[in-house]
């Protein structure tokens, strides 16, 4: 019985691992290098990334409903939620595991030096905020590095 329980636990962990992988669409400019670095991190974590290069990135962001003061370079869509800029993967997963009522997504505005896709590898993230935004246009502090 012990063996069976162990096998079941293994099977469960394999399943939950697969469930964590997200399918995402990233809107970016072809001239954006740090966007590509952020995408590499997401792919390495096992997520399925589709890349789109819209003709007018700014109007795409507006159409998706991003509060424009939170603008960064790339905009990611997962399950209808928006993730703007260089957000650490763990904050995205935590959000998706339990999206707040009325939430639209998360943003790391601008181009913080020590954020994923910007910071040198193996360096701690620091010096930026992860901001939540909702359908009513309300912004909240979700995390701070």
């Amino acid at each position: 019985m012990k063996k069976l329980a162990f096998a079941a636990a293994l099977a469960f962990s394999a399943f939950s691992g697969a469930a964590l992988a997200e399918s995402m669409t990233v809107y970016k400019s072809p001239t954006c290098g740090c966007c590509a670095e952020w995408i590499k991190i997401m792919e390495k974590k096992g997520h399925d990334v589709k890349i789109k290069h819209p003709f007018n990135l700014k109007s795409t962001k507006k159409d998706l409903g991003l509060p424009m003061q939170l603008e960064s370079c790339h905009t990611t869509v997962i399950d209808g939620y928006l993730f703007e800029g260089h957000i650490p993967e763990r904050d995205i997963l935590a959000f998706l595991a339990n999206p707040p009522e009325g939430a639209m997504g998360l943003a790391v505005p601008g181009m913080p030096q020590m954020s994923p896709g910007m910071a040198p590898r193996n360096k701690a993230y620091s010096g930026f905020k992860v901001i939540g935004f909702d359908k009513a246009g309300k912004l909240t502090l979700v995390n701070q590095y």
Partner: protein
Amino acid sequence: MKTAPLTYALWLSCLIGSLAFAEDPTVGRELYKVAGGYGCGVCHGPVANGGGQAGGPIRGATREQFDKALAEQPTMKLLVNALDEQNLSDLSSYLMLLADMPLVELTFDDVSWTITQAPINQDQIVQFVLFNDGFSDLQVDLTGFGLDEVTIAPMDTAIVEWVAVAGSYFLPDDSLLVVSDQAVCVH
């Protein structure tokens, strides 16, 4: 009358010539907002002030520095094909124009102000960069400068320009902004 078409042709070529080679900072300012699809401000701040972003301030960057960055810096290299010669001239002239505008940066984080200011002389055009780094609307009273009160949404930035008049003015944290009565010679 025979010379008329020639005169017209000359005038036209001058016009085209001036259109093709003139540097236009107002065109540069608009390009600054959209270059590369995301705009320069994402990395360099809304008015090339840095704004705490990775690219840092580039006010007053020369065309030479611009070309060097496009040739050498990994992020800038990717923009080479997105900007033509005219774009570079226009952007460059905008950055040079900004160099003559003293910057006063005011950031409020729901608790306190962080303010930095450049030396200011009479008649210079000052750029106030007001960043609301907090989560409620921010009202800033600029009536002491003869300007309207501004309301700034959370995480938003307002850029307000003011033609400096010699004197002392209170800033929102009760520190003083002093405008010297010495006029500066621009270039």
